[in-house]
Structure formats: structure tokens, C-alpha cells
């Protein structure tokens, strides 16, 4: 039933919204490969990843305390569109763009690449923000 509903919603009017499940599905499959004990993504872990400061920087430093609002680049002051798909439907619709920014920003904030689980947790959290 759920699948039928998704297929219906995705058919014509809002193709942009529909890329999100497939990006998340990709990370889910990768997370299972990384860790056999992996069950599912967690919005709580994702929120922690978003807010936790590593050294003097967190994701929220640039993206803002509320992912439904605009952020501001800490170095250049550039406006950053909201991260939550509810506020910015284009988020997490372009797999290459998503991977590009995880690669850059995980490297900057965590000083290492993010795991597939972290990426999935992060998107799952942001998708819950209204």
C-alpha cells in the first residue's frame, strides 16, 4: 500500500520530492554493508550529529540552530538555504550534490569522511524538521 502511495505521489506533480527515498535507500544499503548489526537510521542520532561541536565547529555553526531556517557561512557570511526539505524541497534530491557536500563538510567538521549510517541519520533527522 505504502509503495502504491509513493508511486502515486511520485508520478507527475512533484518529481523533486521523490528522489529523497532513493538517496536514503542507497545509504541504507551501504550502511548494512558497513555494519551487519545496522537496523535503521535514527533521527535522534542525526540531530546529535547536526548539533555536536567537534573542536569549535558543528554543522549547525553554518547551517543554523534551526535547519528550517537560513544559515550563514561562518567564514564568508554567505546566506545558506534551509537544510530541512520541509523548508527547502530541493534538499536531498540530487545524489551527486548530496555526496559532494557530505564529502566536503564531514571532512571539515569531523576531519574524516562520514559513514553511510551517519549520512542516513542526518537526512532522516532533517526530514523530520518542520
Amino acid at each position, binding site marked *: 500500500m505504502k509503495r502504491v502511495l509513493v508511486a502515486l505521489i511520485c508520478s507527475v506533480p512533484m518529481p523533486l520530492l521523490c528522489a529523497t527515498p532513493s538517496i536514503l535507500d542507497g545509504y541504507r544499503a551501504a550502511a548494512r554493508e558497513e555494519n551487519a548489526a545496522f537496523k535503521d537510521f535514527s533521527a535522534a542520532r542525526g540531530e546529535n550529529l547536526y548539533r555536536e561541536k567537534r573542536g569549535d565547529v558543528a554543522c549547525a555553526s553554518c547551517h543554523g540552530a534551526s535547519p528550517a531556517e537560513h544559515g550563514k*557561512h561562518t*567564514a*564568508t*557570511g*554567505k546566506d545558506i538555504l534551509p537544510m530541512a526539505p520541509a523548508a527547502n524541497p530541493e534538499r536531498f534530491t540530487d545524489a551527486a550534490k548530496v555526496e*559532494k557536500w557530505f*564529502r*566536503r*563538510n564531514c*571532512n*571539515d567538521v569531523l576531519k574524516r569522511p562520514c559513514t553511510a549510517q551517519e549520512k542516513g541519520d542526518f537526512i532522516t533527522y532533517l526530514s523530520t524538521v518542520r
Partner: protein
Amino acid sequence: MNYFPRVLGAVVLVSAVALASRAKGEDGEHETKSLARAHAASPLEAKWQQECNGCHIAYAPALLPPKSWRLVMAGLGKHFGVDASLTAAESAQITDFLVRNGSSRWSGAAAPLRITETRGFLKEHRGDELPADAFTRPAVKSAANCQACHPGAAKGDFNEDRIRIPD
């Protein structure tokens, strides 16, 4: 009769020297005017805009010489402290655009990575021409934030008449 070609030669020579010195852009106003882009955006230009504009305005290619752009683009993994890496294909495309449109009026071997360290920038932003705190005002934040005072900076417009320094 015989000296006519010599006169012609002299006229051509003088004109060429005049043109060359003008093209060198010793006068700042001429130099900044030439940074503005008047042509329609090519796909390559759109790509450059899109990628650089992810974090800051896409600084006009003519603000640095090709050699500087090659160095900037080769170091995107650690771009002024931040990972701005691109795919190899994107990087090659954008490097090509920057190198082809980089400043052609560069003398000397210096290839600064920061636009704010170029002679052209320093000459136009001397202490006696700007308020002392111009670059640290909250609305400006840093000298990298061109558009805070130059509203047309993203289009390469740094014309002196359109400067507005925020309070």
C-alpha cells in the same frame, strides 16, 4: 618622397605604444572597468558561477592571473582552510574557464592566492581612502566580502561610482 614610409612607420609605432600602455592598465579605473563581463553566460561560465557561488561570490577571473587560478584550483581540497573539492572533471572545466579569462595584464612572477594580496587590490583599498574599520564592520565582515561595498561584484562590477560602504 623617400621619407614617407618612415613617417608612416613612426605614426604606427607611436600608436602601438599608446595602445600598449593603455592595455597595461596603469590607471586603476580602466583596469576595474575591464573586469565587468558584458557577454552572455556560456555553459562553462554557468558552471563556474554555480560551483564557486556555493560558498562565496564567484570572484571575477580577471582579478587574478592564470597562474594564480591554476594554484587555487589545484588546492581546493584545502581552500583557505575549507574542503572545497570538486570532481576531476568539474575541476578541469572550471580551471579552463578561469585560466582563459584570467588577468592578462600581470607583470612579474608573483602568483598570489588571495585577491586581497594583489597589487591592484591594495592600490584601490589604501588606508587613506577607506574608513579604518571598513573591513571589520558587521555588514562587511572581511575583505573577501566584495559585494558588501560593491553591489555589482558578482558581475565583476567594481566601478568606483557604485561603491556603498555599509555603516
